[in-house]
């Protein structure tokens, strides 16, 4: 119950910062100022936006399917929020440390799709329906390269547990029950004979200890953009064609919930990318001889310092990825629907299949 409240508060905070960052980044990339009025540098703008949304009239259009229309935002947000249950925030803080976290996450995200269909249908509106259809087609197709990229990580790490995967990517690996006698080698190749178990830092991140996962990371990142309906994959919400996509009929608090769900999805996919590929809550600084940078910037596990450092590294890496997502939105034009499917089925999926095979071979080099 405590984890529920904490995660929700943390998520709300991140989403408000993200909404503000989105407007500022967009403004700077277009040589504008962005919000400046509310608070210093306009930093209270997104808080005021939320207050405004909560005051608005709650409109349910007369011809809408009222039950489905009202249920859909709840279902969408619940599905995304349930994904946060298995995310490890620090070395000893994870809301639900189940052994099949990765698999659970993939499954629970697909509930989101049902919610989208419900919203699109319940609105009884052509634009909403088309938006929902496009969105679902896109999410279902891009789940395949994303799933294969995640599968290659699972092959290298031999685990479906997010916390175990996190521990493997740092100097603390031998502290995890079951991993006491494991060793990390440079680039994961035992034949090189360079033991990085005690060095930690960036040398034990998944993209570094099995460099083939760098390709998997790029594939996952592209697919995750599509899964959270971000540009350049935003045809479900294309303003010029569909007004706003599946949430065109929503206003007030219901719109706020959909908005929150969309940004939570961005945060969730970035968190998963950080945990699976970029070393989770581990520090990027390695131990160099007597200079124990990795241990100094990790703190003591179980203590307050370990918790603060872990949270700091995880969130700062996540924000780097989120910034990249915002930047891409103002860099690339929207993909046409045939280009979208071409990219998914003819480019990403074959490469992802090859990466899965290579990851299997790499695993053999690691032991």
């Amino acid at each position, binding site marked *: 119950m405590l984890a529920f409240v904490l995660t929700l508060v943390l998520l709300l905070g991140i989403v408000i910062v993200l909404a503000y960052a989105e407007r500022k980044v967009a403004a700077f990339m277009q040589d504008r100022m962005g919000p400046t009025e509310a608070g210093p540098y306009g930093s209270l703008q997104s808080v005021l936006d939320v207050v405004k949304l909560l005051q608005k009239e709650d409109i349910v259009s007369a011809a809408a399917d009222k039950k*489905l229309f009202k249920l859909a935002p709840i279902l969408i947000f619940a599905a995304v929020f349930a994904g946060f249950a298995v995310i490890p925030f620090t070395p000893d803080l994870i809301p639900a*440390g*189940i*052994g*099949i976290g990765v*698999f*659970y996450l*993939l*499954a*629970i995200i*697909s*509930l989101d*799709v*049902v919610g989208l*269909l*419900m919203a*699109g*249908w319940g609105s009884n509106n052509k634009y909403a*329906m088309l938006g929902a*259809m496009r969105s*679902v087609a896109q999410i*279902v197709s891009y*789940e395949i390269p994303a799933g294969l990229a995640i599968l290659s990580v699972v092959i290298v790490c031999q685990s*479906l*547990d997010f916390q175990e995967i996190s521990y493997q990517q740092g100097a603390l690996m031998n502290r995890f029950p079951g991993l006491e006698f494991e060793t990390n080698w440079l680039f994961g190749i035992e034949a090189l004979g360079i033991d990085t178990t005690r060095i930690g830092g960036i040398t034990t991140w998944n993209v570094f200890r099995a460099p083939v996962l760098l390709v998997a990371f790029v594939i996952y990142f592209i697919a995750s953009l599509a899964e959270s309906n971000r540009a350049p994959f935003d045809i479900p919400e294309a303003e010029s064609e569909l007004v706003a996509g599946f949430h065109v009929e929503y206003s007030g608090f219901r719109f706020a919930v959909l908005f929150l769900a969309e940004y939570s999805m961005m945060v969730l996919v970035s968190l998963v990318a950080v945990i699976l590929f970029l070393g989770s809550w581990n520090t990027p600084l390695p131990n160099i001889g007597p200079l124990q940078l990795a241990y100094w910037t990790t703190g003591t596990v179980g203590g307050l310092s370990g918790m603060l450092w872990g949270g700091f590294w995880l969130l700062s890496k996540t924000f780097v990825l989120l910034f990249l997502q915002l930047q891409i939105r103002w860099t690339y034009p929207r993909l046409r629907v045939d280009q979208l499917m071409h990219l998914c089925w003819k480019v990403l999926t074959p490469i992802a299949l090859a990466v899965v095979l290579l990851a299997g071979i790499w695993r053999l080099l690691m032991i």
Partner: protein
Amino acid sequence: MLFYLFAALAVLSGAYMVLTRNLLYAGFSLLLTLLSVAAIYVLLFADFVAVTQLMVYVGGVLVLILFGIMLSSRMHDKSVMSENTNLGWGITVSLLTLVGLCYTIWQAKFASLPWLQAADTDVLGQQKSTVQNIGIKLMTDFVLPFEVASLLLLIALIGAAYIATDKNNG
């Protein structure tokens, strides 16, 4: 206690799915049924089965059904309604199945089975999940059915791709 809650949910939503005339509502109540069945699996320590159920049925089959309903409707009517046909035969078959199932369960007398009485409630023990055991079993004792199933799925995939090809172009 939780078990009865989820069992009641599963039965009620299942009944609603069968009784409602609106196909779309039937689809969404199927979602509720599948979720409650997944919850029951979790209560039975079958976490892997529960998540697989979500993955395959909710993420795949249910979305496909909903897509089908949505694409094939809204042409002339407000939404798709189902009709009653084969009333007599339907009732006969379902009643016979019910009688057969009841008889089998009664015959099994599962409360007095020796392995069930000796069973421990701490099924998982030291392990955090059933995945390791399932993996080992699939690669040793049940490798033949596993491979046959994968072959079947491959055949289905090729068949689907063949049906979907545009024959005028090829």
